[in-house]
């Protein structure tokens, strides 16, 4: 079971990487296109800026979810430094459990948010409704929750150090 999870998470990791590459390169290219259009052809894509700002949001949420897998979030880890080995393991499990619960709540509330936005029916530009662009919230937080869950189960079952020191690839 856990083996299948690990395989799935590897597969998603590759997909995630190429989506990020695509988004960042598109962001760069589209910005350049806007400059060229304005300065040389006296044109501009008005909704371009809105699109680009949402791409940054997408990159950020996907990037944050990635940072969860690689344990690269900002954290103030003063207490674990003071604790002995066993205490560290337990504390690691507690912090991961807490992080899992909060990211699950973030995911659920994002879902509620997107459903509300869909109901409000506002458009970001032309025929693109806001909720399409905002759907990255529940998705990003769902990936994050799964990664915390994965780490918790992995660390519990492998009996290794919990939380901070138990790192998934």
């Amino acid at each position, binding site marked *: 079971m856990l083996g299948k999870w690990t395989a799935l998470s590897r597969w998603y990791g590759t997909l995630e990487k190429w989506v990020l590459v695509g988004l960042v390169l598109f962001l760069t290219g589209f910005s350049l296109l806007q400059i060229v259009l*304005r300065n040389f*052809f*006296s*044109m*501009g894509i*008005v909704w*371009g*800026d*809105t699109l680009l700002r949402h791409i940054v949001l997408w990159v950020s949420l996907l990037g944050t979810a990635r940072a969860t897998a690689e344990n690269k979030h900002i954290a103030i880890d003063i207490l674990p430094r003071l604790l002995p080995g066993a205490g560290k393991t337990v504390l690691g499990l507690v912090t991961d459990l807490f992080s899992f619960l909060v990211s699950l709540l973030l995911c659920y509330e994002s879902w509620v948010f997107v459903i*509300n*936005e869909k109901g*409000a*029916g*506002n*458009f970001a530009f032309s025929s693109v409704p806001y909720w399409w662009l905002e759907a990255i919230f529940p998705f990003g937080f769902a990936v994050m929750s799964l990664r915390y869950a994965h780490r918790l189960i992995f660390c519990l079952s492998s009996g290794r150090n919990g939380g901070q020191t138990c790192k998934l690839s």
Partner: protein
Amino acid sequence: AENKPEFEIKLATLAPENSSLMQVCNEMNAEVLRETGGKVGFKMFAGFVMGDEEDVLRKLRVGLVHAAVFTATALTDMDPALRSLQIPFLFSNYGEVDYVMEKMEPDFKAALLKEGYEVLGWPELGFLYFMSTSPIAGLEDLKGKKVWAKANMPMSQAMIDRAGVSTVAIGLPDVLVALQTHLLDVVYNSPYYALVTQWNTQVKYFTDLPLSYIGGALLVDRKIMAKMPPSLQETVRKVCAAHLQRLNEKTRKDNDEAIQIILKRGVQKVTPDAAHVKGFNDLSDEAMAGLDAKFLPPAAVSKVRAALAEYRAQHPSKP
């Protein structure tokens, strides 16, 4: 020493703390408190602290705020008919606006009520005007200029696009620097806000022709109104309507004074002649005709144009 009113209405506005709008809102609050014996009162959140209009609208939906002052622009997705008032170069004076608004008001109120909001008044931003670094007296003067593309001005945008003019999308706070660095040549705003944001220090010309009318509304969540006994509801409606009416008179005076100050501080006035005004009008009509019926409902447009024709027949323009 503050006693919280039994019904506290959290009211968000985008206007700065020291603006006319906030002054009137504070006076309005004082009178609401007085007239309801301290039972109903507003708690104010001024100056963007709640975010932009779309953020405030979302907060209104989840109940973090109960009331807010919006520009009509923010409400056009709820009621597309509101766009019919924003058609570029539609109105030439506030007499026309008031007459048309009177005819349209019941429709707008009904549409917004269906979304769950009651209108307590229609505080407006007023007419927008072109301000520029080179004189804009007609359509051809816009060609080759870097014209500001304000977010959420689809009607003006449609018109400027049709003129084949390049626009630059820049966020509101960056406009001042963009004028300074010549990233922008032509901007537009209400005179009062142009003065507040000090744009007048970076432009040389003011085109004396209203570009577009931007109205507004103070919406309150029907749920919080419904909690109050009917007599209190009536008091709130009556007091707010009176103050917001007064606010519009004040806004118009502020805008007129702002034009005078802008001109006094060295910005030159440009007055387009009749032929150029017609050029703008024709282009606007052409651009509006090309818009989707769902975006700009033809029924509302016809009603507005009919009312406008009525008013103009009663008030033939001075030669």
